[in-house]
């Protein structure tokens, strides 16, 4: 990894974790990068991740964000299925 790329920790929950068959992964993306770039990388790279939505609900560092938000090296990017709490 060099200064022009970011390595992010990716997390999957609930049905998405079942689809991908794992709860987390690491991916690298060239900088500057958005959450959407991470999503595309994940869907292309990880087995089973092609069945994830193209525009999932996402959080970066424990906060919901839009897909055009920037990511930095070391960020945690989470793919959130439709929220069903309460």
């Amino acid at each position, binding site marked *: 990894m060099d200064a022009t790329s970011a390595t992010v920790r990716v*997390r999957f*929950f*609930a*049905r998405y974790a*079942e689809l991908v068959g794992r709860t987390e992964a690491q991916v690298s993306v060239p900088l500057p990068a958005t959450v959407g770039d991470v999503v595309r990388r994940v869907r292309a790279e990880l087995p089973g991740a092609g069945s994830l939505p193209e525009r999932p609900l996402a*959080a970066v560092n*424990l*906060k*919901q964000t839009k897909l055009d938000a920037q990511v930095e090296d070391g960020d945690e990017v*989470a793919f*959130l*299925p*439709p*929220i*069903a*709490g*309460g």
Partner: protein
Amino acid sequence: MTYLTRQPVSIDQLVADVSSPERGGTCVFLGTVRNGAEERGVEAIEYSAYEEMVEVEFGRLVADAAARWPDARIAVRHRLGTIPAGEASIGIAAAAPHRAQAFDACRFVIEEVKRRIPVWKKELRLDGTEIWVDPSGHPTSKPSHV
């Protein structure tokens, strides 16, 4: 404070957390695992969460409520794990000097939970199937393959 628990939700504890002689109205909401005519055979629901995010998001949510109802005090606990039908998955208590504030703050919290707290549920049915619940309240068609 931690907002998550794997134990039964204690109403008494929530009420104790918000009670004080200045606050004459307390509104409590309990969301319980339902197994009625619409559900057809839900034995339990398995709740899972993005736990670290739930804790910080609940903190933000309670702060938002405190900004809107400065005299109200709010406590909330969400249970995770396998919860049998009829038991509570979430408990919210809001106490305020006057009842309208207590009702409104409590209602605000449960509506916001449904919108922004990253928790998911899978119905465990009597016939052995397991179905993820989507936010409209209806199960997805795809059965779980855990």
